[in-house]
């Protein structure tokens, strides 16, 4: 119980500190992208407009949340050491893993707030677009039969909001949380925040190739031993980030089953737990 209070206090302070660093200003760029995009594509058909809006908004949401996860996590340990706040905290009866957990919780809270705000903005613009398209459709079909009107309305609503967008947004959050946890692991043995950021970005790209490397390795293709060794290393040491890229197909209208969503969320949860446990393990022996 006492440790939970400690984690809560560190998490809250981390979130407050990050908010004070004005990280939410990136939302202005997101808003500009979403609203500006809507204005720019106004001359396209409504199906194209909604497709573009979803493509750009969810893509931007994924970019911003991934960047935020990496940058916010990579910065905190060197900053706390530079400010010497880490010594003040760890001089008290605070286990090192609680310190890391509190920091991670604070960053996850920041990511959750950022994704909630971006989702709210995106869904608001989508709703406005849908209302406009529905009003235009009703006016155009004023003299048509009720069946034709119902079909036209169904066409508009089918291309705007669908319930699958919500699990898609949750998966963006899980991927960002995974990246935060991975960056935390790197930062426990890194010597500078630049090294941590560079490593995390490199792992981000390699992680997207992990699925290809895994398939290549497990298919047992007859190639050089060193080639197989390399793919095995990638498959074993790096996270499968492609597993979290479901939003591209969700935007295109592919329905996500509960089983697939829970499986993906579970995989994300395992990665987060593993990276956190390894971070705590390495950090517990680090000389400060």
């Amino acid at each position, binding site marked *: 119980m006492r440790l939970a209070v400690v984690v809560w206090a560190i998490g809250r302070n981390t979130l407050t500190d990050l908010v004070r660093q004005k990280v939410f200003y990136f939302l202005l760029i997101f808003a500009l992208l979403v609203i500006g995009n809507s204005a*720019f594509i106004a*001359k*396209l058909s409504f*199906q*194209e407009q909604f*497709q*573009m809006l*979803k*493509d*750009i908004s969810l*893509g*931007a949401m*994924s*970019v911003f949340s991934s960047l935020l996860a990496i940058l916010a996590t990579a910065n905190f340990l060197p900053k706390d050491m530079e400010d010497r706040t880490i010594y003040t905290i760890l001089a008290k009866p605070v286990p090192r893993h609680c310190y890391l957990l509190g920091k991670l919780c604070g960053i996850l809270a920041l990511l959750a707030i950022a994704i909630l705000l971006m989702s709210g903005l995106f869904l608001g613009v989508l709703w406005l677009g849908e209302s406009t398209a529905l009003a235009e459709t009703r006016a155009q079909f004023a003299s048509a039969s009720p*069946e034709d009107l119902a*079909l036209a309305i169904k066409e508009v609503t089918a*291309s705007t909001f669908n319930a699958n967008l919500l699990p898609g947004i949750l998966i963006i959050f899980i991927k960002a949380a995974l990246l935060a946890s991975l960056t935390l*692991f790197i930062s426990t*043995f890194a010597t500078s925040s630049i090294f941590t950021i560079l490593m995390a970005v490199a792992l*981000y*790209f390699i992680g*997207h190739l992990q*699925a290809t490397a*895994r398939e290549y390795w*497990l298919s047992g293709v007859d190639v050089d031993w060193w080639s197989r060794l390399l793919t095995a290393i990638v*498959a*074993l*040491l*790096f996270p*499968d*980030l*492609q*597993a*979290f*890229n*479901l*939003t*591209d*197909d969700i*935007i*295109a*209208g*592919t*329905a*996500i*089953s509960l*089983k*697939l969503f829970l*499986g*993906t969320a*579970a*995989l994300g949860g*395992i*990665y987060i737990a*593993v990276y956190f446990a*390894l971070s705590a*393990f*390495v950090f*517990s*022996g680090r000389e400060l």
Partner: protein
Amino acid sequence: MKWRQVAAVLLLALCGAAMLPLQGRLASAAQAAHFRKTSLDIGLRERIGQAGFLAALSGFRSPLAAILWIEAHSAWENTEWGRMAGLFDTVTTLQPRSLTYWDMASWHMAWNASIAALQNEKQPSEALRIKAQREYIHLGRDFLERGIKNNPDRYQLYLQLAVLLRDKLEDHCAASESFAKAASFPDAPSYAARFAGYELAKCPGRERDAYEKLRALWVQGEKQRLPSLINLLRDMEIRLDIPADERIDSTPAFRQN
């Protein structure tokens, strides 16, 4: 490297090995549910360049597709049909599950580009203009057929293919098949089945079959009994020499109406 770091890397590899079955199962489940079907191969790499390919690999397929679509729209405004076709090809490769992209790409090619080719003042030969027109129509058909291959679980592209076969190629037999395929989906609009019958009625040698199908629709009730259906049935009854007591006008259901 300290022993803790070495141990952490080894533990990470162990955890990675333990997670392999879950990763494999998830990848199979995702493929079965039509996720992650895009093939990011060397052909795509050549078309979108290194930066684009990196973006596509990093999970930004959909924003990249959106940007290329806007570029294709600019090409349309400048009537650069060839460039448009290339961009559409890339966009549909990046987002093969997006019906909008397949549908619009086909429409631009089979309708806009084909008409533009036919009216091309720079081409003095009418035969070559017609040839170009046919090529664009077939390009439009190809987009829809590839779209169907990537989206066999949705009816919309079957409908669009049927419309193209009917209006642009006047292949009524194939159009009927495509409408019928669309109608077989539970969420398809009710007109798909009627249109399948109308097209079958224009398919040489299939008139009797068409009559049976249209009559079966008529029997279904009020929702299908539209003036076009009734008029066509009457016309076919005369052409097929259906006995007077079997015609729709003589049925109790019709008399009640």
